[in-house]
């Protein structure tokens, strides 16, 4: 083999090597970026995704004296599913139907199964048993397509079962779940939401196109602004859709719903909280007024900034853009962390830890004097090998709760594995109490492997009762799912405590 051949082979080998290494690096980087994206989506949408997971996981089981065929007929009227997938767009349609089961899906001919759900009919104790199950919900990178439509289908099935045999309620259900009447408030809002969304998409596409094909440095703030405006439009459209859903819920429940609240993202949950409604109304209106003032100031400031910006040299402009982008990234990171971590985010901020005044009087938490951990409280050494933690048992109860039910808060104190103690307040958003119904807590956030002491201020509860309350809302019967920023998860239970129905 001569020198030339060797050189060619050598160069070829080198090129192959470089291609190989860069290919591997690209592949790993690409997967890493995908994971980062999924991680971000999970963080931002955690609360909503948890709600969706709960809806998917728990079948809706109902019984009715009406026959299966009668209920099916009502379902046909109220759900109004199409007989086949539409070629474009998206609609709920029937995949199959037998005497004991109807299977629905959402999608079109190209993407036919954003979700698949079935309504099964059986017999139990002389009545018709109806079971609504979600069989499949498409998820891509943490985004669950069709979840809102699935929620509406589930609600409409529940409504239809209750309305069977009552023409008046069926007619009302048709108004709620059927297509909106032309000119009605719902129809106008749906149209407006769609318009806002399309404006957002148009802004986004134009900005991306211009930025992709190259713009002058001086024009770039305009297109970045368009990107932000597009995102804002999409957010607003989503809020308007949520408002439509909240109005439907409110109409079903027979209570009004506050538009300002829903648009600010507080309403749907807050409206359900007995006693918290007035406070959140006021907070939402104050926030709206503050928002208007801030927007006016921002517009004035933007005008001045724009004038100052055009006076800068190209190099200075680049620096300004770089700094602005860095600030945006930091702010985005802080906001996304703030949204997903810490219990009670979004709850009225009128309650602080200082309100919990052991031994004191007045509104808020007033524990009895003997609320201290028992002497033989478990320590970190008591942790079981698989990471389970034990609750520190309290001797007794909490007293001094307000009787008007306006204070729905719990103080949770915990001692971490290393011995550090801290506490936080479970606020209204984390505690749902409904009249005489059993209370339940959801989304308790603690570090893994913690030891905890829990107090309730709204009613006297023993440790066992407290455990019952927690068990009621737990994903796994008799235990608590702990999450902390989606980083750790474990279960906690009381070593000596067994709920009445067993774990």
């Amino acid at each position, binding site marked *: *083999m001569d020198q030339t051949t060797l050189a060619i*082979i050598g160069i070829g*080998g080198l090129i*192959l*090597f470089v291609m*190989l*290494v860069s*290919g*591997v*690096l690209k*592949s*790993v980087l690409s*997967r*890493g970026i995908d*994971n*980062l994206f999924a*991680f971000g989506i999970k963080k931002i949408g955690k609360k909503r995704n948890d709600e969706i*997971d709960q809806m*998917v*996981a*728990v*079948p809706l*089981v109902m019984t009715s004296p009406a026959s299966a065929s009668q209920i099916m007929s009502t379902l046909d009227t109220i759900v109004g599913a199409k007989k086949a997938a539409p070629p474009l767009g998206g609609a709920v349609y029937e995949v199959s139907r037998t005497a004991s089961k109807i299977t629905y899906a959402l999608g079109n001919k190209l993407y036919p*199964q954003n979700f*698949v759900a079935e309504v099964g009919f*059986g017999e139990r104790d002389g009545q018709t*048993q109806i*079971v609504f*199950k*979600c*069989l*499949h919900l*498409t*998820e891509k990178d943490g985004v669950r397509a069709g979840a809102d439509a699935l929620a509406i289908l589930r609600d409409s099935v529940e409504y239809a079962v209750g309305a069977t045999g009552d023409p008046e309620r069926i007619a009302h259900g048709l108004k709620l779940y059927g297509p909106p009447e032309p000119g009605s408030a719902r129809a106008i809002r749906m149209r407006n939401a769609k318009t806002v969304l399309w404006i957002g998409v148009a802004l986004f596409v134009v900005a991306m196109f211009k930025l992709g094909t190259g713009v002058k440095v001086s024009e770039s703030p305009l297109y970045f602004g368009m990107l932000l405006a597009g995102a804002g439009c999409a957010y607003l459209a989503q809020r308007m859709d949520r408002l439509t859903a909240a109005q439907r819920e409110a109409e079903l429940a027979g209570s009004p719903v506050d538009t300002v609240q829903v648009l600010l993202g507080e309403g749907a949950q807050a409206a359900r909280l007995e006693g918290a409604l007035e406070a959140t109304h006021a907070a939402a209106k104050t926030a709206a007024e503050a928002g208007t003032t801030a927007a006016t100031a921002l517009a004035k400031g933007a005008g001045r900034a724009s004038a100052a910006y055009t006076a800068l040299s190209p190099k200075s402009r680049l620096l300004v853009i770089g700094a602005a982008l860095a600030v945006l990234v930091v702010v985005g990171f802080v906001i996304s962390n703030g949204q997903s971590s810490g219990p009670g985010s979004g709850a009225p901020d009128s309650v602080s830890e200082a309100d919990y005044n052991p031994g004191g009087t007045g509104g808020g938490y007033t524990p009895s004097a003997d609320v201290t951990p028992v002497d033989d409280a478990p320590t970190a050494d008591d942790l079981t090998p*698989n*990471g389970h933690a034990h609750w520190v048992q309290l001797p007794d109860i909490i007293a001094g709760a307000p009787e008007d039910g306006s204070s729905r808060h719990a103080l949770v104190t915990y001692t971490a594995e290393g011995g550090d103690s801290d506490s936080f307040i479970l606020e209204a958003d984390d505690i749902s109490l409904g009249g005489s119904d059993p209370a339940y807590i959801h989304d308790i956030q603690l570090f*893994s492997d913690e030891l905890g002491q829990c107090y309730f201020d709204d009613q006297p509860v023993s440790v066992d009762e407290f455990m019952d309350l927690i068990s009621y809302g737990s*994903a*796994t*019967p*008799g*235990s608590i799912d702990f*999450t*902390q*920023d*989606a*980083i*750790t*998860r*474990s*279960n906690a239970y009381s070593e000596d405590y067994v709920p009445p*129905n*067993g*774990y």
Partner: protein
Amino acid sequence: MEFFSVVLGIAVLIAVGWVFQKIGGFALVGVNRGLFFRGEYKAGKHLREGLTIHTSVPVSAVMRELDTYVCAVDAPLGFSEVLYNESRTDTGIAWAFGSASKVKLEAVLAFSPAETGTDAIFAVTRWFEEDGLLASADALKTLRLQVAAAFRAADPAVTITEGHADRSELSRFDGVFESAE
């Protein structure tokens, strides 16, 4: 000799590429498990531990509630990933999660008669990992929840324990754990 050198060179290149691929894969797994998805990784391990159940009602009563509470279809739905019934006998049910072309998870609920009622074990017999994480953790979490709900509906006094405490007893369950381990 020269030909052998060229072949050897190509083989070395391929080996280096393979090593890079592995190193990249390991790095990604490490980052996912230790940093970005630490919670998911731990949760996945925890979910795979299964459940040990004791109930005072007969198997038939549990089976009926399982039909109600477990959201499984009779067969895979094309490319959509769903939970479906893989097999069913008097002593157990096997579920699988995945599409028609790829199964991502298999789990078994096995029954065994006890002195007072029925013992059961819920076990994950097959699973896949993607970049170091359990590929179908959400599906498994949901299935566990639904199985537990079914048992509680059949028998409010049911005892459900996470994991399998006494492995010496597992031989009663028709070899469920032989395939699980």
